[in-house]
């Protein structure tokens, strides 16, 4: 207890000094795991834990932010080729920046990072891991992490997973993310090891195989009988829902207690259908390879909240990159702070992730943290603001005639955008239902065109479920009830034979 208290004080002192020893944060996370194992819950004043920011006086917060920004800008300008040149050309002095003058620093685009990742790596760091985004929108974006960066991400994610998702030693945790998503895989595997749970890497294999893995009893000592926790991108959940509904799987076939979805927009319609199929709705998390450990957490009112501890978040108009107005669409512009990130330095990184600025200050349980709406989609021009991905998915994923993951495209035509979508069949009834629901949701469409073949779409959206890994395993492909007849029915074959 004493050593734990000392570690927490060392962590707090490290944050104030701007020099954080990763092993201290690691010990804090390990103490949290031990605490949860002993007591089942954390003690009083849990808002003092990393990432659990309580209400802070605005002036104090402003001072803390200014210090963190100066420290981060100082390292970026002094140790990276990109920001060294940029700050030199513009005559920006990091030590004079404040939270109020931070906008002097030009935003960093995804294209700049993609074009030359090494130009963003601090010379004083020791790069260890090349993490790349999945690249569903084109070229993957590369971000180098040092061992210290990775240790920080793992420790903070351990705290988040243990507290938010309630992962415990009894659990069996599986991931359905692509095995090429190295960062996510490494972090999850290590978190599970530290919690003392069991880890299953399923990968992004065929949904039939995933369902089969989730339903298979494990019968391992000290573990839950089946996989309890599963994380995957939203489109993978969509494909699982589609397959589960088609093949007749029910929640009783699984032993899932916690689901986590990140990396893609999770619509409320999909959450409801996932809950119907698996008995539990997926929790959401906002994280991105480029900005870790900065990210967002959801409150009970559906807002996305941003802890001020790990990074500076700005909500900027996606077109002008000026502060967005209340109620307006904004893109998240993020500066991950030193000392959490010391290898790839990014200042005012434009994520292109769209949110809506809240009209009024939140009153939820996370009201102490800055907030926005949940992620609406990805900025890809004015059309993506007018009809964001979330509104399309809310429209399509509630309609059971639409194949999941939803295949669609928006075509900008005179008079407004037209939504082309693939359904199981072309039908006037389906079209009417979609049009009525679009009107009810207020989706600004000129029209909807239903196709019964994905090849007929004018263009095809890509999703993470498309990052399919192939397998020689044929068990899941055997699929539905009719094929079970090829083996036998147990009541016919055994009639209750006991050993």
């Amino acid at each position, binding site marked *: 207890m004493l050593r734990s208290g000392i570690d*927490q004080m060392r962590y707090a002192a490290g944050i104030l000094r701007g020099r954080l020893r990763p092993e201290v944060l690691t010990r804090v996370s390990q103490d949290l795991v031990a605490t949860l194992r002993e007591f089942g819950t954390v003690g009083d004043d849990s808002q003092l834990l990393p990432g659990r920011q309580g209400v802070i006086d605005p002036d104090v917060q402003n001072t803390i932010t200014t210090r963190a920004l100066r420290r981060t800008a100082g390292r970026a300008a002094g140790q990276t080729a990109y920001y060294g040149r940029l700050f030199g050309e513009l005559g920006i002095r990091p030590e004079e920046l404040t939270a109020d003058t931070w906008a002097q620093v030009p935003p960093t685009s995804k294209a700049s990072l993609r074009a030359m990742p090494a130009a963003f790596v601090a010379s004083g760091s020791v790069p260890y891991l090349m993490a790349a985004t999945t690249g569903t929108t084109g070229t993957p974006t590369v971000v180098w992490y040092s061992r210290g960066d990775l240790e920080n991400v793992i420790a903070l994610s351990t705290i988040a997973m243990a507290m938010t998702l309630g992962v415990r030693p009894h659990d069996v945790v599986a991931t359905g993310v692509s095995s090429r998503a190295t960062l996510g895989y490494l972090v999850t595997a290590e978190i599970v090891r530290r919690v003392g749970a069991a880890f299953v890497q399923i990968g992004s294999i065929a949904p039939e195989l995933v369902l089969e893995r989730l339903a298979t009893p494990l019968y*391992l000592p000290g573990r839950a009988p089946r996989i309890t926790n599963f994380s995957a991108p939203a489109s993978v959940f969509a494909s699982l829902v589609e397959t589960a509904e088609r093949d007749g799987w029910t929640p009783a076939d699984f032993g899932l207690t916690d689901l986590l979805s990140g990396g893609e927009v999770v619509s409320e319609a999909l959450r409801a259908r996932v809950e119907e199929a698996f008995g539990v709705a997926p929790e959401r998390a906002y994280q991105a390879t480029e900005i870790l450990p900065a990210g967002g957490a959801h409150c009970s009112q559906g807002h996305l909240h941003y802890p001020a501890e790990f990074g500076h978040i700005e909500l900027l108009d996606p077109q002008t990159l000026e502060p967005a107005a209340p109620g307006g669409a904004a893109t998240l512009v993020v500066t991950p702070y030193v000392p959490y990130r010391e290898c790839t330095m990014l200042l005012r990184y434009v994520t292109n992730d769209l949110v809506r600025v809240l009209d009024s200050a939140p009153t939820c349980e996370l009201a102490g943290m800055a907030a926005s709406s949940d992620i609406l989609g990805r900025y890809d021009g004015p059309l993506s603001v007018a009809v964001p991905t979330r509104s399309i998915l809310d429209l399509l994923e509630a309609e059971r005639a639409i194949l999941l993951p939803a295949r669609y495209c928006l075509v900008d035509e005179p008079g407004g955008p037209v939504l082309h979508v693939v359904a199981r069949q072309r039908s006037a009834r389906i079209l009417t239902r979609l049009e009525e629901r679009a009107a009810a949701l207020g989706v600004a469409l000129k029209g909807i065109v239903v196709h019964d073949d994905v090849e007929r779409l004018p263009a095809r959206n890509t999703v993470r479920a498309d990052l399919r890994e192939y397998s020689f395993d044929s068990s899941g492909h055997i699929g539905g009830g009719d094929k079970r007849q090829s083996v036998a029915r147990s009541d016919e074959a055994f009639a209750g034979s*006991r050993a």
Partner: protein
Amino acid sequence: MKPSAPALAGLVLVVAVLIGLALVHVRRYTVSRPPIGLFVRSDVALMAVSVVIAPLLYLELPATVVAAVFGLVTVVAIQTAAAPLLGGRPATLAALALCAATWACWLSGHPLPTTLLTDAGLAVAVIGVTSMWVQGGMRAAHVAAFAAMLTGYDLTATSLTSLMTRFSDHLHGLPFAPLLVIPGSHGALVAIGLGDLVMLVLFPMAAGKAFGRRPAVTAGLVGVAVTALIMALFWWRVVSTAVPVLAFLGPLIVAQYAIWRRLGYRERTVREWRDAVDPRAIKPDPNAPLRSALRVHVPAHLPTGAWLAVDDGLVVGIGPSPGLACRDARANGHVGPLVVRGARV
């Protein structure tokens, strides 16, 4: 001078009441704890070092300074004990009021009220601290290890050297002295040291948390019996100077711990204690259902790729994959845990 029988009996009674109150407190009231952290071995080691160093240090300090330090510790400990009953702020006020009254009585030259208030503060403080330790994750094993260390230390500090006698004389009559004194014992002093009192109260609580009600009651009775025995030794004049209580109690604590473990009790976590998990619950053999599944007779006509869902040695489902075999079992009405095996193992 021979101590009076009421004083000796009074001390035994006080110890018994204190143990009882402590057991009620730890069971009924949840003390505050930090967001993360629990009692671990390094905390026991630190306590052991503190126990050795503190008396030596206090002997070098002016008695009033030592009293002030103990007064401060007493305020915090009383607040800890009283907060779950009264609320944070009232508990703080109560602790401050009790300590201020003690200090005032001492300054105004009233020894009896000073002793009574010091005793009251000490009693509440002991309950608060021990309850906080046990609810903070202190295990019976920690207490047993601490008791083993204190057995040797108490023997040395009390009997083989004059350390404890000098320490007791140094603080005699001061407020917040770490001695629970029974007033009215004219002449011979009837008192018990803070360390002894802590261990008398602590082990029943830790045993209750770790092993359950019966070990807790046993530990309490053993503590009271040890106190009564020592008081009897005074009454019979077998002893007439300070007695190292922990030299008697320490080995009994270690023995109790060893016996309960030997009897198949395992240490419960705080969560298991609050959930009333049976510490003697025998874990089922995890391999038994697997062995049972391996013994199942598989008809020769089943294809190699078939999978069987087995429940208690009975095949209850069959399918072309493990998941589908389980689905088949559920379709047959089996909802319990299943073992799945291939047709050909």
